[in-house]
């Protein structure tokens, strides 16, 4: 029994160290995630009201707002942002709802689920490039129909891309938001046991979609409301997709703000800040409108439920089919768009009505491949650092929750969504101003900090559920066998949760790879990543370069997903208990 005092001493020495960091983890995480957002908003508000000492703005004035209001394109840009945001969100939500209503629990649904992660990880810009090539007047669709249907022998002079109403922008957003909302809905569905509700409704004579909408949807919607708000805010204020697919004269408000930010005339910074504040107000207004629509829909829904209408099988089947076709179109658009990029990147001569190029060549990759190395390295360093930090903080928070019972209230979930709901331009412009003041401007560290703001929520959201549903009796068993909490974490919990940890890592990596605005603004244009380079090159209109960059970008985002799927299979190939799921 001589070992007992030694054990006690060692434990006494180890415990305070654990206690030092873990209980603080939630607070540190909140500061790291929300600090830049709040500081950035302040940094945006000040110049919006004329205060920016670096540019001789020392007093408060309404001049920046006045200048903003005098910009002739303002009302059009505002309406465009609002319309695109509400439109893209409503369409995405409708598609996702009807797919789930019509197909949840079927075999086709399992296939849809499998497609989700890869689709989700395709960076927005790459998806937008792909879509642009599909629907442009000289794009694949037009080539496929020419000249035998259309009679065109050269690209028609039509404004399909960047149309003034923002329709192609809406389409582009829908293709990326449908997978996101679907993933969120799937997570919500596992908690509300939809199968039994639906079976009861069907036994009472309800058609499938009608029954699902009346019994399951209200429960699910409550849980996906925050993701829906995030989609709305993102669609209203997105910059990279809007540059590629959105109209130009005027562009959406967010794009115009970025143009002012990057204008050589520094005086426009004030106007840019005012525009960013307006963008924030616009998003809040949009969410208010959506909330109003929720209330109205809720009232109407209650009346609809109380009528007891069973729905009809015929129309039900039609809607079911339509939902699947719409969802498939969104998925196919991304996949075909990527295929187009692949072909362009290897294309030799490729004239208009030809469906495929005359020949394939390595020339494009040889010519641009060397230029890729720099941005690719930068992308990997930034994504690796941001994801690593996010993973560390997330695991620390989840362990603190497990060991110290520091479980956040459901209300705290709002905080996690804050960086996803506050429009990027509204705080990144301020964040840039502040980092200039702090002398951090243009550095890789500042960019990593900015990426962390967006990577953290996604890593947390993706890891929290699998972490929490892990059977705590494994913990009790291991502890009863004499293992301390650290040993249980490293030897039991992390290995058992390897797959979700890797998937969360892949999600974080993909989010970081896809970041355009934080890299551009916080890096002051001096931290080139695959994404910023690809978007910058897009204006050149050379599809071969764009193809090469978009593919490199997609590969950087997809590769970790492939690893996350393959690695557990390799490591646990002799462990049946971990292979399923």
């Amino acid at each position, binding site marked *: 029994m001589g070992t007992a005092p030694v054990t006690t001493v060692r434990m006494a020495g180890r415990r305070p160290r654990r206690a030092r960091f873990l209980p603080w983890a939630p607070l540190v995480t909140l500061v790291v995630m929300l600090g830049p957002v709040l500081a950035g908003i302040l940094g945006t508000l000040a110049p919006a009201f004329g205060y920016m000492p670096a540019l001789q703005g020392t007093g408060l004035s309404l001049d920046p707002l006045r200048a903003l209001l005098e910009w002739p394109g303002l009302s059009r840009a505002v309406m465009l942002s609002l319309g695109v945001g509400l439109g893209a969100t409503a369409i995405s939500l409708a598609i996702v709802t009807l797919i789930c209503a019509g197909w949840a629990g079927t075999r086709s649904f399992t296939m849809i689920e499998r497609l989700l992660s890869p689709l989700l990880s395709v960076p927005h810009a790459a998806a937008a490039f792909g879509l642009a090539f599909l629907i442009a007047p000289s794009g694949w669709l037009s080539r496929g129909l020419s000249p035998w249907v259309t009679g065109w022998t050269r690209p028609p002079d039509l404004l399909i891309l960047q149309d003034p109403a923002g329709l192609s922008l809406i389409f582009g957003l829908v293709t990326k938001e449908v997978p996101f909302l679907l993933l969120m809905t799937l997570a919500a569905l596992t908690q509300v046991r939809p199968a039994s509700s639906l079976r009861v409704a069907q036994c009472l004579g309800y058609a499938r979609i009608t029954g699902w909408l009346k019994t399951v949807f209200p429960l699910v919607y409550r849980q996906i409301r925050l993701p829906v708000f995030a989609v709305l805010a993102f669609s209203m204020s997105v910059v990279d997709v809007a540059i590629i697919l959105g109209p130009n004269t005027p562009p959406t408000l967010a794009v115009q703000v970025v143009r002012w930010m990057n204008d050589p005339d520094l005086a426009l910074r004030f106007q840019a800040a005012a525009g960013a504040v307006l963008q924030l107000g616009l998003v809040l207004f949009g969410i208010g409108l959506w909330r109003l629509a929720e209330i109205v829909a809720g009232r109407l829904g209650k009346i609809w439920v109380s009528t007891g209408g069973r729905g009809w099988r015929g129309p039900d089947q039609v809607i079911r089919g339509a939902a699947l076709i719409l969802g498939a179109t969104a998925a196919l658009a991304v996949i075909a768009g990527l295929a187009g990029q692949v072909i362009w990147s290897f294309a030799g001569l490729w004239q208009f009505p030809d469906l495929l190029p005359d020949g394939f060549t390595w020339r494009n990759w040889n010519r641009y491949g060397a230029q890729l190395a720099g941005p690719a390295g930068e992308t990997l360093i930034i994504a690796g650092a941001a994801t690593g930090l996010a993973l560390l903080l997330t695991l620390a928070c989840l362990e603190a929750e497990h060991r110290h019972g520091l479980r956040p209230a459901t209300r705290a979930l709002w905080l996690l969504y804050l960086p996803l709901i506050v429009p990027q331009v509204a705080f990144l412009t301020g964040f840039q101003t502040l980092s200039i003041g702090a002398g951090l401007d243009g550095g890789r560290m500042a960019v990593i900090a900015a990426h962390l703001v967006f990577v953290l929520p996604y890593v947390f959201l993706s890891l929290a559920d699998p972490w929490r549903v892990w*059977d705590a*009796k494994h913990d009790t068993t*291991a502890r*009863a*066998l004499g293992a301390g*909490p650290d040993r249980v974490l490293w030897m039991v919990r992390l290995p058992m949760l390897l797959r979700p940890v890797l998937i969360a890592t892949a999600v974080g990596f993909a989010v970081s790879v896809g970041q355009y605005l934080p890299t551009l603004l916080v890096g002051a244009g001096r931290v080139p990543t695959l994404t910023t380079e690809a978007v910058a090159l897009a204006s050149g209109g050379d599809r071969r370069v764009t193809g090469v960059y978009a593919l490199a970008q997609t590969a950087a985002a997809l590769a970790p997903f492939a690893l996350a799927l393959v690695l557990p299979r390799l490591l646990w190939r*002799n462990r049946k208990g971990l292979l399923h799921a």
Partner: protein
Amino acid sequence: MPENTAFPPGLRFEGVTISLDDTRLIALDCNVDPGEVLTVMGPSGSGKSTLLAAITGTLPPAFRLTGRIRLDGQDLAGLPTEARQVGILFQDEYLFPHLSVGANLAFGLKPALKGRAARRDRVEAALDEVGLSGFADRDPATLSGGQRARVALQRTLLSEPRALLLDEAFSRLDTGLRQQTRALVFEVARRRALPVLQVTHDHSDAEAAGGPVHCMGQLATRN
């Protein structure tokens, strides 16, 4: 080990009550002697398992525990689970799915036994004892229910517990296997002079144990 001669050896409950909100789930005041089996019976949902959680120190904060639990005289209050030296077997075996059978057993084996070869020999010996020689490299997911139960038992014993808790430990096994496994567990506990506390809803478990029975969720009786 803090031996306290003022208290008899074994697992001792001194005016222990556990309540949730204002409902008292359990009240226990007794001593489980070394080698003895106390059976706590009650329908599911009556809070039997919270008693075991109180002993392992994993009681959720919503529950309120009063009184004292002593193991060989030592007050368990405030000790972390890993320092209590209480072995527990659940209905599921909770063999760690990422470790081989041998690694699972080595996980339970105290670090005081040094040397890779010595540890491997001890693990092999533990497998021999329950008729599972040569199973060290197997994936636990490929074992039968009875084999898994025996591995879980040996893993617990290798951690040298001072008491054994059984949480419906046999209810997954079918009748024949159940009798066999049960007999093995009780025999080992008796041989090692371990106080055993089992919670179950099955009378045959109580009869096989042969010790005192505490019934919950109705009139508390002891026989």
